[in-house]
């Protein structure tokens, strides 16, 4: 169950080159929201839009394709998208909400639907939840330390950040590339990520990430009936180019390997935490 329930899995990328240009990998999230927005499936989507400082994301409610495009690409630092979930129905008056988030945010969303404490009118308005694969996240200042102090790239010169092939990559606007081993970045990770037991956003309608697919493509899990319908419609409308996951390298085996790595590592940490005290134990959310 490390990959969660899913109805289908494939490698895909947005057919629209304009979306792909500036996307992290296959532009799946942007393309799917843009399609859903134009087809009236969602009224708007909560995305990681541009914030105050360079590369600091701000949870943003995008109601136009331009706003979606402005939020393309992975930011690799915390963006509390769930903070806008009620605001989306209130200040923005959305009846059909799209939301993108990390696995933990998908857990938060589903908990909010099952136990809707303090989120009146929200549970029945989630029209499309897209999850992104996530090993861990960084606080803004942690990410800044990695980029500026380790990679020696000023934040305002940064064009793209990527984690892949065991390395952290920083690309500048003028084309320079810096890479550092991932082990140097571990100390900047957000501690709360280390108790997370989900790698591929098991609770999303559709989840996606680069791992498993070739460069420029994304692996996509279609998980729920809602996700299946919308994915099917979008694919039919020619929004995506799709390949069989079995026909691409490195394929599903790598996704499974990394998922197992994350979950077993974090499970171990949870057990370790339980033994920190003597006759006392730290809080553990899992029941």
């Amino acid at each position, binding site marked *: 169950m490390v990959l969660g329930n899913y109805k289908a899995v494939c490698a895909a990328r947005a057919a629209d080159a304009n979306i792909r240009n500036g996307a992290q990998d296959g532009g799946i999230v942007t393309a799917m929201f843009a399609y859903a927005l134009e087809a009236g499936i969602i009224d708007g989507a909560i995305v990681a839009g541009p914030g105050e400082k360079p590369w600091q994301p701000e949870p943003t409610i995008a109601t136009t394709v331009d706003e979606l495009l402005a939020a393309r690409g992975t930011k690799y630092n915390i963006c509390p998208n769930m903070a806008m979930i009620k605001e989306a129905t209130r200040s923005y008056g959305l009846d059909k909400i799209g939301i993108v988030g990390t696995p933990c945010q998908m857990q938060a969303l589903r908990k909010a639907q*099952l136990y809707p404490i303090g989120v009146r009118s929200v549970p029945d308005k989630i029209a499309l939840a897209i999850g992104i694969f996530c090993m861990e996240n960084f606080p803004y*200042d942690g990410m800044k330390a990695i980029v500026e102090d380790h990679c020696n790239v000023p934040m305002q010169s940064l064009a793209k950040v990527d984690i892949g092939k065991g390395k952290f990559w920083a690309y500048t606007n003028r084309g320079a590339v810096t890479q550092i081993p991932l082990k140097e970045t571990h100390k900047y990770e957000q501690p709360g990520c280390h108790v997370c037991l989900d790698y591929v956003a098991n609770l999303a309608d559709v989840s996606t990430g680069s791992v498993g697919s070739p460069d420029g493509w994304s692996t996509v899990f279609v998980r729920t009936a809602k996700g299946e319908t919308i994915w099917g419609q979008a694919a039919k409308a020619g929004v995506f180019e799709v390949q069989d996951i079995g026909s691409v390298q490195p394929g599903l085996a790598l996704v499974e390997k990394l998922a197992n790595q994350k979950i077993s590592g974090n499970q171990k940490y949870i057990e370790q935490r339980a033994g920190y005290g003597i006759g006392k134990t730290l809080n553990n959310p899992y*029941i």
Partner: protein
Amino acid sequence: MGLGERLSKVFGSSQESKTPVNPTKVENSENKTKTEEKLVADKITIGHVHMSGCSGCVVSIADTFEGLFTLLDNYADLVYCLTLADVRDIPKMDVALVEGSVCINDHHSIEDIRKTRENATIVVALGGCASYGNITRFCRGGQWNQPGHEAFVPIGDLINVDVYLPGCAPTPEAIRNVCVMAYLLLKGNDDQKALATKYLEPLMKLPTLGTEACGCDLMTKIINHGLCMGCGTCCASCPVRAITMQSGKPNIERDMCIKCGACYTACPRSFISLELTAQFETILGAIDGAMNP
């Protein structure tokens, strides 16, 4: 399709949820109008007990709109409720939804909360005041027209409470979900009981954790314990917008906090069952089906 039927279908269990006490007797009465009998017999009884609260919780019950009629038609009889049911004394009931804290300067309130505990199988603290005191924590007395009423306690300080349903007000959707689950717990088959137990378990654990809540819980129980990952759910759930996200973590404007307990309860790192949430689509579908038969 009724909820029981739908859940049985979904969870693949047998349709015959209730084992008849006397099978022969049932056979004899088979020709009678079975469906009608079944509907009435299957209902649970629910009451709303109004302590010191602002009526926001009872409004929230009514705000299920036509869903309230579905609940009352198919699953529950409202046997006690100021303004909605014409009953003076607190009767016996399966589930008591208690709104408000208890004013210990008023002997009627003390008698009422005691009677509620005696007469109800399940006592639900409905909303922030009943669970955690909420805004009544700030009372200093001197208000019109009972200046002597100044001491208010959450109901859990006086009686054992089975379920907390925090929030100011608790949302209509949360009330609906808990009512459906309470129905399954009391009247469902074994599978449904197991599901309802799993669902209600964390809400039943809350009363054992105490009667105090504050936005500070996010710091003391979540962030300080290394569990916060900055999803922002607490911020969305705060009814008074006392929480903002700073450096990817909640910052609580503590003077604004009304101590309703919503943020901590909503936090995915206060409690979560991965087994239960994995079935979210099925459960939400079943609740939806139950509410739109």
